[in-house]
């Protein structure tokens, strides 16, 4: 979880991934889910002739928001207050949790219903509420599943992507459907969750949501979802508290035209998502009568200060980069040690929590570029990964062993003479590791290669040696030819 209360480093990705990769059920679940969403996305994106223009528009709007965030935030505050809402500013997770806990207590509630929200996961809100004696009930089906299982989300959009239906059936039988005769049919599982949740919705006094978008111009807040649980939370309770990262602003209502096309197609692979809830302050006699908007920084202004890294704040949490990523689709989300997994997590988490706490994340990518290709707001994830790797090596200092090797190699490559000498030395040195013409075991870090792969041995002649030999032969041949002519 990304929270300043945790000051130690996040778990190292290679080790965390190793555990996940060995879980065959997880691998199967992930492969099936990511492949399905990937192909659905491909189909609906392919339908739009102006997809590239939409992406460019999304990127341009977000770039403008970041450039003028100070102005847009104040405009949003003014618009929300004007529409009858209240605005709170939270510098970090601790402040945000204190504000929200206080608001729930002021409303006299001991139980709140929640719409799926990554931002509240980021600040560890549920645990903070629990410490204050308040029960938070997740109402999104997948969020409910992982809450009941006491696990954490492994995907931005499909938090329980790591679980299959028979695992869910077993979980429900242990928790919300104890006396029920439940099969692993999705309809039956959904019905069990619905019975449980309906009672929660009707009893709740306070709801807590995140926000997909906040419109500076009008103060309108939007939540995009699929199950209708969001609509219940956003309309039934008397008090609504919304936590929104400061980067979620869009300037005008008109901008929905771009983002409500980009988001559903990129995330669930749908032309339009089933429920889009928009609300502007409070409306007497209709819906919540008290509305609080908590604007959260929690490291975002620090990201904003980095001109290359800042594009990570453009993210609209669609998760297309997770689904397409060859790393994520094999390791799943838990290996990333953060509520933001996958390629976007690899660039966002280190910037939010501090690069020294997440040094392995920017390396959790083969730089294949698939994430950049699908990103609806054109975040150049590979570029930011390289930028962050640069910060990591700078931070590691000149004496770290990798830096020493890299400097030596750079010195070798900088001189053709040293380079050729190294080629010859390599050819002699490799014999120790060779077996039947290939290298099948290497020491140290390079053993990572040969554990599962053979390595081509250096051949007896480099290309440049062949080239010179050919030149010599050609010269000799032409000299020979001349001699013949003379003779």
């Amino acid at each position: 979880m990304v929270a300043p209360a945790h000051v130690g480093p996040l778990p190292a990705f290679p080790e965390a991934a190793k555990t996940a990769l060995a879980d065959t059920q997880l691998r199967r679940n992930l492969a099936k889910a990511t492949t399905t969403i990937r192909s659905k996305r491909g189909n609906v994106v392919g339908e739009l002739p102006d997809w590239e223009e939409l992406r460019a528009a999304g990127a341009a709007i977000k770039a403008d928001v970041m450039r003028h965030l100070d102005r847009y935030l104040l405009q949003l505050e003014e618009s929300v207050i004007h529409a009858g809402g209240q605005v709170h500013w939270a510098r970090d997770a601790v402040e945000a949790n204190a504000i929200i806990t206080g608001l729930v207590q002021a409303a006299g509630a001991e139980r709140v219903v929640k719409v799926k929200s990554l931002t509240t996961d980021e600040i560890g809100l549920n645990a903070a509420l629990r410490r204050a004696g308040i029960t938070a009930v997740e109402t999104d089906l997948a969020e409910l599943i992982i809450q009941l299982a006491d696990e954490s989300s492994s995907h931005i959009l499909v938090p329980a992507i790591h679980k299959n239906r028979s695992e869910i059936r077993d979980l429900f039988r242990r928790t919300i459907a104890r006396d029920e005769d439940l099969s692993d049919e999705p309809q039956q599982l959904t019905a069990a969750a619905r019975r449980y949740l309906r009672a929660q919705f009707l009893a709740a006094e306070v709801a807590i949501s995140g926000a997909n978008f906040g419109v500076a111009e009008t103060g309108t807040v939007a939540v995009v979802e699929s199950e209708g649980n969001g609509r219940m939370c956003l309309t039934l309770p008397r008090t609504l508290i919304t936590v929104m990262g400061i980067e979620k602003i869009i300037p005008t209502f008109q901008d929905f035209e771009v983002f409500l096309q980009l988001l559903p197609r990129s995330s669930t692979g749908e032309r339009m998502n089933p429920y889009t809830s928009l609300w502007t302050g409070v409306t007497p006699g209709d819906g919540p009568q008290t509305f609080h908007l908590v604007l959260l920084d929690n490291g975002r202004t620090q990201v904003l200060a980095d001109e290359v890294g800042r594009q990570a704040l453009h993210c609209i949490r669609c998760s297309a980069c997770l689904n397409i990523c060859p790393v994520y689709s094999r390791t799943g989300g838990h290996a990333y040690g953060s509520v933001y997994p996958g390629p976007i997590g690899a660039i966002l988490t280190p910037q939010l929590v501090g690069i020294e706490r997440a040094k392995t994340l920017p390396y959790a990518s083969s730089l294949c570029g698939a994430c950049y290709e699908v990103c609806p707001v054109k975040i150049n994830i590979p570029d930011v990964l390289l930028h962050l790797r640069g910060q990591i090596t700078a931070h590691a200092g000149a004496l770290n062993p990798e830096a020493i090797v890299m400097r030596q190699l750079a010195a070798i490559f900088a001189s053709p003479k040293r380079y050729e000498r190294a080629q010859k030395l390599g050819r002699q040195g490799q014999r120790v590791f060779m077996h039947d013409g290939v290298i099948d075991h290497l020491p140290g870090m390079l053993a990572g290669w040969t554990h599962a792969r053979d390595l081509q041995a250096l051949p007896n002649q480099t290309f440049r040696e062949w080239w010179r030999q050919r030149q010599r032969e050609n010269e000799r041949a032409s000299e020979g030819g001349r001699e013949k002519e003379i003779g």
Partner: protein
Amino acid sequence: MRVALFITCFNDTLFPDVGIATTRLLERLGHTVQFPQAQTCCGQMHYNTGYQRESIPLVRHFVEVFGDAEVVVAPSASCVGMVRELYPKAAALSGDERLITAVRDLVPRVDELGEFLVKRTGIVDVGAYFPHRVTYHATCHSLRVLHVGDIPWRLLQAVKGIDLVELPNVRECCGFGGTFAVKNADTSVAMLGDKVRSVLDTGAEVVCAADTSCLMHIGGGLHRLRAGVRTIHLAEILANTEED
């Protein structure tokens, strides 16, 4: 054309046959091949591992070696990708105006082999003959950095005698990723496992690509499994004729 061959340190040291094939192919097509012997490495490993400053002298060296070339051709999508995408950034990082200008001037003259053949010289049928069942792996940098599209596929389709089969999930990474392959060896191998499965599903005897680094990775897995499938660079297929 007068072609300056950028062999890449990887091919020079590990896969000289790719360079020999590239030379023979280009000469057969009537081009004059030059090999500037001062060339070394493009600096991609340094840049991608986070040693961007350390790559700057290598960028400078490359520009010095190839600056005057009419056209530079390399049998590696990845190294050409480094030059085209990242050299301008490395030059900007150096703050050296002369290097920035020199890079800007050189970049449009650097081609990956397939691009050179199809885009620059307009040839698709190079007169090659290769009577084997072949599948083609579209490397990530071919696809998503150079955007070569179907160029390699079209070149292969024109080869006489070839039995060309499509690779399932052709757009997916093989798991190499430079130092990723050792820093995240387990994830890399998991990706490789699926790539190898796709290759075996085609029933091909040869896997071909425009980058030996990816081929070394796929080939390393295939060889360890004694799968009976070999890897070959695109240039080696295109260089092969009925006379060979």
